[in-house]
C-alpha cells in the first residue's frame, strides 16, 4: 500500500461502450468499490454494470417540493387571514382554490431548486480540481473515449491491480499520480468570492438597518419626477390665476347635459320657500324602486350596510382598527334611526347631493333621478327594518 499512497489511481481507456460496460462489470465483481467511469455521453446499463446504488435525489426533490407546497399555503393563509385580513367583495379571507396557483408554483420552484442544488451536492460539485485533469489523454473523455479508473484508496487496491485492469480489453493504461497542489479554489478566486458575497449582503444590511432604526431626515426619493409630479392637485394654490386657486370653478352658467333646470325642487330637494320637499317630485314606480336598490347597494351599502343600519364590513373593520388604536372612525349613520326617519325625502336627497359630516357629496356619481330613487328605496328599507320580526 505504501507504494500506492502517492497514486490517485489507475486509468484504463476504452474505445467502445461495450468493452467499458464489460470491464466495469468485472471490476465490480472483483470486489472493488472505489472506482468510476467517465464517458462522453450517458451510457445505458452502465449504472447496473457498476452497481451504482439508486440516488436519493428523488427524495430530496420530493421533500423540497412538499416544503414549497406547504409554505405556499401557509404563507397565503397567514397573509390573507391572519396578519392582514381584508375583506374584498365579500370573498372569503382565505379560499383554497385561489391559493392553489401560488402553492403549486412554489412547489415546482423549490422542487427544481432541490433537484439542482441536491444534484450538485450529491456529486460534490462544483469541483475546482481533479487529479484526472492532469492526464493528457483524459481530455478525450468528452469526445470519443471511455475511461475507467480504480482509485488507490480502494481497500482491494494492490500491486497487481494495474496489470489486472490492463487485461480487461482496454486500449491504454496509465497510472495517475496524486497531485502535490492542494485541492480547492485558487486564492485570488477565493478572495473575490468573499468580496462578492460581502457586497451582495450590503443591500440586505441597509434595508434591515432602515427597517429597524428611526431617522429625522426625509426619505430618499429615487424617482423624483414620480414622487413630485408637475401638476396641481385638488385644493392647491396657483399664482397663475387672479383668485389664487388651482382648481377652476365652472364657467358661469355651466350645466350638465340635460339638467338645465337647476332651481326646481327636483334638483335641489327644496321647495321655493326653502322647506324640504315632502314627497317625490319624480314618478314613483317599481322601476324607480329597483333602480334605487341597485344604486344603494353600490354607493351607500359600502358604509351604511345593505340593511342601512351602518353595520357594514368597512365600518366593522374600521371599528376593529380603532379598538387597536390604529384608526379613528366615526361610524356611519344608522339610516333606520329615528333621526333619519324624521327627515323628509327632500332632506335625504340634499344629503346625498351635498354630503354631510364625513360623508362626501355623491352628486358626481348619482344623477338627481338616482338620488330620488335612493331616497325612495331608503323608505322601503326603513319600513322593512321597522317591521316586527314575526312578519318574516
Amino acid at each position, binding site marked *: 500500500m505504501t507504494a500506492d499512497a502517492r497514486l490517485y489511481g489507475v486509468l484504463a481507456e476504452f474505445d467502445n461502450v461495450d468493452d467499458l460496460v464489460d470491464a466495469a462489470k468485472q471490476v465490480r465483481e472483483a470486489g472493488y468499490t472505489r472506482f468510476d467511469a467517465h464517458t462522453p455521453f*450517458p451510457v*445505458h*446499463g452502465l*449504472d447496473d454494470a457498476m452497481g451504482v446504488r439508486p440516488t436519493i435525489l*428523488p427524495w430530496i426533490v*420530493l421533500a423540497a417540493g412538499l416544503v414549497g407546497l406547504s409554505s405556499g399555503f401557509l404563507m397565503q393563509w397567514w397573509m390573507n387571514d391572519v396578519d392582514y385580513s381584508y375583506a374584498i367583495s365579500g370573498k372569503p379571507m382565505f*379560499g383554497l*382554490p*385561489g391559493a*392553489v*396557483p401560488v402553492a403549486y408554483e412554489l412547489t415546482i420552484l423549490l422542487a427544481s431548486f432541490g433537484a439542482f442544488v441536491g444534484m450538485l451536492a450529491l456529486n460534490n460539485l462544483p469541483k475546482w480540481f481533479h487529479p484526472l485533469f492532469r492526464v493528457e489523454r483524459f481530455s478525450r473523455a468528452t469526445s470519443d473515449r471511455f475511461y475507467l479508473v480504480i482509485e488507490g484508496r480502494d481497500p482491494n487496491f494492490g500491486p497487481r491491480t494495474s496489470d489486472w485492469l490492463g487485461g480487461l480489453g482496454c486500449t491504454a493504461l496509465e497510472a495517475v499520480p496524486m497531485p502535490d497542489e492542494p485541492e480547492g479554489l485558487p486564492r485570488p478566486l477565493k478572495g473575490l468570492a468573499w468580496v462578492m458575497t460581502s457586497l451582495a449582503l450590503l443591500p440586505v444590511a441597509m434595508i434591515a438597518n432602515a427597517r429597524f432604526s428611526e431617522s429625522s431626515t426625509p426619505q430618499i426619493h429615487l424617482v423624483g419626477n414620480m414622487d413630485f409630479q408637475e401638476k396641481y392637485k385638488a385644493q392647491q394654490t396657483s399664482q397663475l390665476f387672479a383668485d389664487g386657486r388651482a382648481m377652476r370653478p365652472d364657467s358661469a352658467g355651466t350645466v350638465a347635459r340635460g339638467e338645465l333646470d337647476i332651481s326646481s325642487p327636483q334638483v335641489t330637494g327644496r321647495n321655493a320657500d326653502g322647506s324640504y320637499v315632502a314627497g317625490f317630485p319624480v314618478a314613483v314606480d317599481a322601476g324607480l324602486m329597483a333602480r334605487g336598490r341597485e344604486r344603494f347597494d353600490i354607493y351607500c351599502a359600502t358604509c351604511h350596510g345593505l340593511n342601512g343600519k351602518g353595520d357594514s364590513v368597512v365600518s366593522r373593520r374600521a371599528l376593529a382598527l380603532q379598538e387597536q388604536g390604529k384608526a379613528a372612525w366615526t361610524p356611519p349613520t344608522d339610516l333606520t334611526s329615528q333621526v333619519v326617519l324624521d327627515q323628509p325625502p327632500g332632506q335625504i336627497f340634499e344629503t346625498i347631493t351635498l354630503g354631510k359630516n364625513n360623508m362626501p357629496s355623491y352628486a358626481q356619481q348619482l344623477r338627481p333621478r338616482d338620488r330620488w330613487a335612493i331616497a325612495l328605496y331608503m323608505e322601503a328599507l326603513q319600513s322593512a327594518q321597522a317591521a316586527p320580526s314575526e312578519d318574516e
Partner: protein
Amino acid sequence: MTPQASRLLAHDNLHDAGLSRRFGNRFLLIGLAALAVGLGLGIADGDELRHFFHAYLVGYAFVLSVALGGMFFVLIQHLTNAHWSVTVRRLAEFTIVSLPWVGVLGLPLLYPLFTDAGLEEHGGLLWPWIQPLGEDAALVTKKVGWLNPGFFAVRMLGYFAVWGFMGTYFVRKSLQQDLTDSYEPTLKAKKWSALGMIVFALSLTAAAFDLLMSLDPAWFSTIFGVYFFSGSLIAIFSWLILTALFMQRTGRLQHAITVDHYHDLGKFLFAFVFFWGYIAFSQYMLIWYANIPEETLWFAHRQTEAWMPVSWLLVVGHFIIPFAALLSRHTKRRVMVLGFWAAYMLVMHWVDLYWLVMPALDSQALHFGLCDVATSVGIVGLYVAGLCRIAGDRPLIPVNDPLLAECLAFKNV
C-alpha cells in the same frame, strides 16, 4: 427487421394466431348480454329510456376516449420520431383502426336526437337543446344554429369520416411498412402526422363540446375539449399497459415489450394524471374566481347534494391517490403493480365521465345502478369485440419499423 431483432423476437409470437378471434367472440357475447341487461333495466325505469341513454353516452364517451387517445398516441410518436414506443404502437393502432366501428356504436344516439320522447318535459331525451325550455330557453334558442338535431347528426358523421380516414391511413401505412424494406410508408406517416395532429385537436374539441358539453347547453367552458383530451390520454395509457400485460400473460411479445417500455407508459400515465388535475383545476378555478352565475351553475350542481361526494371522489381518487402511487419508479417498473393502477385509472376515468354526463339526468340525486354499469360494460365489450376482429391476425408489433432495433434496446437510464 435487423438480424439482431429477429433473433431476439424469434420466439415472441408476433402474430395473434386466432387469439383475437376467440376473444372477439367472447367479448361480443358479453357485450350483447350486458347491453341487453342495461336496456332491459332502462325500460324498467319507465322514463322513456332517459336514464338508459345517459348511461349509454357515458359508456360511449369512454370507448371514444380510448380510441381518440390512441389516435393521439400514434400521431405524437410519429411526430416526435419516438423510438421507445415502437413495440407498443401497434396496440394503439388497433384502437384507432376500429374508429369506424366506434361510429357504428354511436348510431343508437341518433334516437334521442329525433324522438319526441322527453321533449315536453326536458327539452330532449338526452340533449336538452332540441326544444329549449325554462329559464335558459332564450339563451339556448340563440344556439340552435349550431345545436339542432340535423346539423348535430351531420357533424357526428363528419367527425367519424375524418377519424375513420385518419385512423385507416396511419394504420395502413404502418401495415405496409411490415411488408417492405423501403421506409417510404413510415416517412409518409411521419410527414402527415403534423397535419393530422391539428385536425385531431380541432375535431376532438368540437366532438367533446357536442357530445358532452351540450348536455348543459347554457353552460360553456373553452377548456372543456382539453379536459376530455386529458381523460382520453389517461384512458389510452392505462389501456396500453393492460393490453401489453394481457399479451405477455398469454405468451406473446415476451421480448418485444420490456420493463422499460412499461416504465415509460407508466411515466406517461403519471404525467397525464397530473395533466388531468391541472386542467380540471384550471377549469374550476377560473369559474370559481369569476363567480358568474351562468358559469358556476354547472359546478354548483356537482358540488351540492348527492354529487358532492362524487366530486371529492374525483379529487382524491382520480388525482391525489394515483399521483402519489405512480410517483415512484418502483411502481412503474413492477408490471403487475402498474397493471393494477392502470385498471384503477380506467375505472376512475369512467367515474369522471359519469360525473360529466349524469348530473344532466338529475342534478340533485345519484341514480347509480346496474343499468349504468351494464350499459358501459356492454359498449366496451362490443368495442373490444370489433377491435379483436379488425386486429385479426395482423402482427402485434410493426415488425419492419426502422426504429424497431432501437426500441428493443431501449433502457431508462
